[in-house]
């Protein structure tokens, strides 16, 4: 069982190796001539203004909360689907309630206006 994951780790190692080694090998051949103009953050040629990490409104904040919720529920769907054919009627009734409540939640959020875009 666990042995199935060895190739996964191997591939991850290859991916990391490609990423790291290409940056290191590149260091041997590429020029490195920094100057203050180059090193300033790009802002279409004008002098960068203000702090780049200034506070920023995230208008999709509520979507983020809903996403967390749904992502967890979706995992439940995955496991349910895999065993559905073994426990037909019971699983169907159960998932009907589950999906109905889920859907109700979505409709509720929708009617409350949580799904509407608000400029922060």
């Amino acid at each position, binding site marked *: 069982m666990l042995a*199935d994951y060895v190739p996964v780790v191997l591939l*991850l190692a290859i*991916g990391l190796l490609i990423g790291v080694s290409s940056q290191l090998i590149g260091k041997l051949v590429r020029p490195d001539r920094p100057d203050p103009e180059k090193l*300033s953050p790009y802002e279409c040629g004008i002098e960068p203004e203000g702090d780049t990490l200034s506070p920023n409104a995230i208008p999709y904040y509520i979507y983020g909360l809903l996403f967390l919720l749904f992502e967890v529920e979706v995992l439940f769907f995955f496991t349910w689907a895999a065993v559905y054919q073994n426990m037909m009627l019971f699983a169907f009734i159960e998932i009907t309630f589950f999906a109905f409540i889920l859907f109700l939640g979505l409709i509720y959020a929708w009617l409350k206006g949580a799904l509407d875009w608000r400029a922060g």
Partner: protein
Amino acid sequence: MSLLMKVGVVVGILMLAIAYITLAERRILAFMQFRMGPNRVGWGGVLQPLADAVKLLSKECIMPEQADKWMYRTAPVVSMAFALVPFAVVPFAQAFYITDINIGLLFIMAMGSVGFLGTIMGGWSSRSKYSFLGSLRALALMISFEVPMIMAMTGVIIFSRSLSMVKIVEAQAQYGWFVLLQPLAFVIYLLCGVAETQRIPFDMLEDEGSLVCGFHTEYSGIRFGLFFMAEYANMFMVAIVATVLFLGGWQRPFVSWPFFNFLSVIPSIFWFSIKVLALMFLYIWLRGTLPRVRYDQLIYLCWKILLPLSLINLMLTALYMLWGMNAWTFLALSIGSGLAWLWVYDKTQTLARSPS
């Protein structure tokens, strides 16, 4: 074949495929726009990817002064590594896969999400306003496409009874290609797939009209190259998952009809690659055709249209399994309910827009 050899073959072919899909994309886009595209290096441009690689490797890598140095260096590596990992569980041909883990599909989705972190890290660590906005948009993209995408896959899992990619392909010998049973899910998956690969029409995180280059504005040289390669590897992954889930993987067409058995003389790797390449062409075609949408429009599309649709599709599939209704009735029901939801949604939009 030993494990190392298999890994070597897969990684090698993947790198080659990435190199040449970039060339193919530039040529195809050029022909769509009545240009020639790159045709100078080699014969008709066949050595162009090599030239690009040499160029990217020998270009100066500029790192902004205020950047978070280690995070800035790590971001492309994370993108690249986690774009590569999911290929471990793909059945490329009959009895040719690196490994078959029993949660294959879940694993692919998980690695895709981790890969997205590379994008967000890159945008955040550059300390540039454009990159920062790009990474915010990347986050918005991620929280919108993922839920309907997974919901759409669930319908397939009901049929295949397993999350293993190999078992999903094998199940289609019994049921026929799942696209025939799950047309709604297929469309939802394709749309979400475009979002996952961050491509036009959903590439607002690298919107060159307003964000210069989005999250990789500050990346140059090989570091940009890594992001670029990761994007194309992701594209292949999305095409492969769509092929495996909905288009029968390495199975021949008309797989449940013995009449077409003669098609089996063609090796299964051919069917697999032709389907994947067809989907890749579709993505390139979309890029040549469609304009970019705003990111609130994408969020609306995913949460108000695709998510309810995928829930409907899931419930219909469960009903189909329970009752054993006629496949044609099921098909008509799922397409009909899809259209019905679109109609209802359109009505609510019109009501909201009309002056009161």
